[in-house]
């Protein structure tokens, strides 16, 4: 794989990978780091990237692996220098069908609640959740990337949805 091909991967999947890293890390500096490390690792493993066989899933699985392997590093970084939370207002450009300003406000508040609660989930639930909704991967691709059965992915997504649904009910 030459630099042109890596460039094209950055162009094609950079946004998806970056969005996922940002959601996972909850911190721009760590997300920037994770994003770069993901593509550097991909270069190292570039012979395994088969364009016809889901390179996005491959990149996201690398990001997940790096995230898990670097938990200690990120935990230490957070202990040493607590960094600001991601500014979700600037990070979101959501649109909804709601027509009144009040409904739009409520909708945005609900989105904020979901994001906050999703961030509190254990990585076992959080990672598949972000792979599904943020990286827009299928259950099959998530199962393949995480090397777990599809049933387990469905189960984890179901648990995560249930928790978030319960929170919204209280809200």
């Amino acid at each position: 794989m030459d630099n042109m091909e890596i460039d094209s991967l950055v162009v094609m999947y950079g946004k998806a990978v970056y969005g996922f890293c940002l959601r996972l890390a909850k911190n721009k500096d760590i997300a920037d780091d994770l994003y770069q490390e993901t593509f550097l690792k991909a270069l190292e493993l570039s012979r395994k990237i088969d364009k016809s066989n889901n390179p996005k899933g491959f990149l996201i699985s690398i990001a997940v692996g790096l995230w898990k392997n670097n938990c200690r590093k990120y935990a230490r970084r957070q202990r040493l220098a607590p960094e600001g939370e991601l500014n979700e207002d600037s990070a979101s450009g959501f649109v909804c069908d709601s027509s009144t300003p009040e409904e739009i406000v409520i909708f945005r508040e609900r989105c904020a609640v979901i994001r906050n609660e999703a961030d509190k989930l254990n990585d076992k639930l959080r990672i598949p959740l972000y792979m599904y909704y943020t990286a827009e991967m299928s259950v099959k691709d998530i199962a393949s990337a995480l090397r777990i059965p599809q049933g387990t992915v469905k189960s984890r997504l179901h648990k995560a949805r249930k928790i978030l649904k319960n929170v919204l009910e209280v809200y």
Partner: protein
Amino acid sequence: MEKYEQLEQLLSQALSSTDEPSEALNHKLKCRLIENKSIIKPVRKRIAVALIAVVVLIMSGSVFAFWRLLSPKQVAENLGDETLAKAFDSEDAIQINKSMTSGDFTFTLMGITSGKNLSDLTNSAQDIHPDRTYAVVSITRKDGSPMPEISDESYGQTTFIVSPLIKGQKPWQVNIFTMNGGYSECIVDGIIYRIIECDSIEMFADRGVYLYAGTGSFIDNQKVSYNEKTGEITINTNSKEAGVLFDLPLDVKKADHEKAEKYLKELLNPEELLNPAPQSTTNNEYFTDWDDEFADGIVIPESIKEVTYDENGFACYEYNGSKVKTDLNFLFKEGETGIWKIVCVNGDENEKTVIQFLKNESGVVTGRTVKKAK
């Protein structure tokens, strides 16, 4: 409250991301990609050719194969790492040069060294664990034919994994991936030279440390066997992959039992660091929800049957169109028998079933499907 579709829509919009990497970040990334690619690539034949020319003149045929190899220092030089080259040339480095053959390949453990700041190539993991171990392994074909060059299309068709393993620790839990490892590789005259690096293994010197080298990309129970009682790790004789296991001759004086225990605790429970105890407890409660929900579930008698195993050793179970395949090492804890463990949940809000596995004392695993009580 939300209907399913509404919840889905809300989740999709709340969790989707409109963020993009900045141009500056992508520029920085591209520079690093170019830089790294140039580091990975160098193949300097001149040194090897000169070495072989001398060796042919003075060495007998039987030891020629061994002397064909570059030294660890030369390998590091070839990969552009002068600092590491000096480290391999120092008295602290251990020269091993031991070869083992498996399948179509011969693996030679050439040398190993450990310490702080031994490489020009910095790794973010060094922020946490500055002590690193570096080992050089060469890989050749048993029949003497050359390995493909990096530029060849066939390069990478056979993948290799080289990883330290610790006696007393499950190989699939403590290996190069979990020990913040990485590798650099070059090919000189048809021989693959790989330098692996990871957190220092010297602290484990009193326990026994192995180096696994073989084909494939991961460490799993298909490649190596782990004896729960003795902690011994051995090559799985039924493995279809080529693989060898070297005993590393580390200096026992450098062992640090306390440091090793602390390291293993962090490695095996990384979430404890990220999630404070109350958070973990909360999440554990979520994970036991299904056990609670199906505590009085109705077992479908005809669904009870022994699981089968696929070629990768995963336990397989199927009933009424619901299939599941899982790695039992992650399902059952050591010595855990006689307990039905939920493997997966199927169905929708109206009707759910779970598939459960149970391991008996003889190690036989049985699966069953359970309906939720109405």
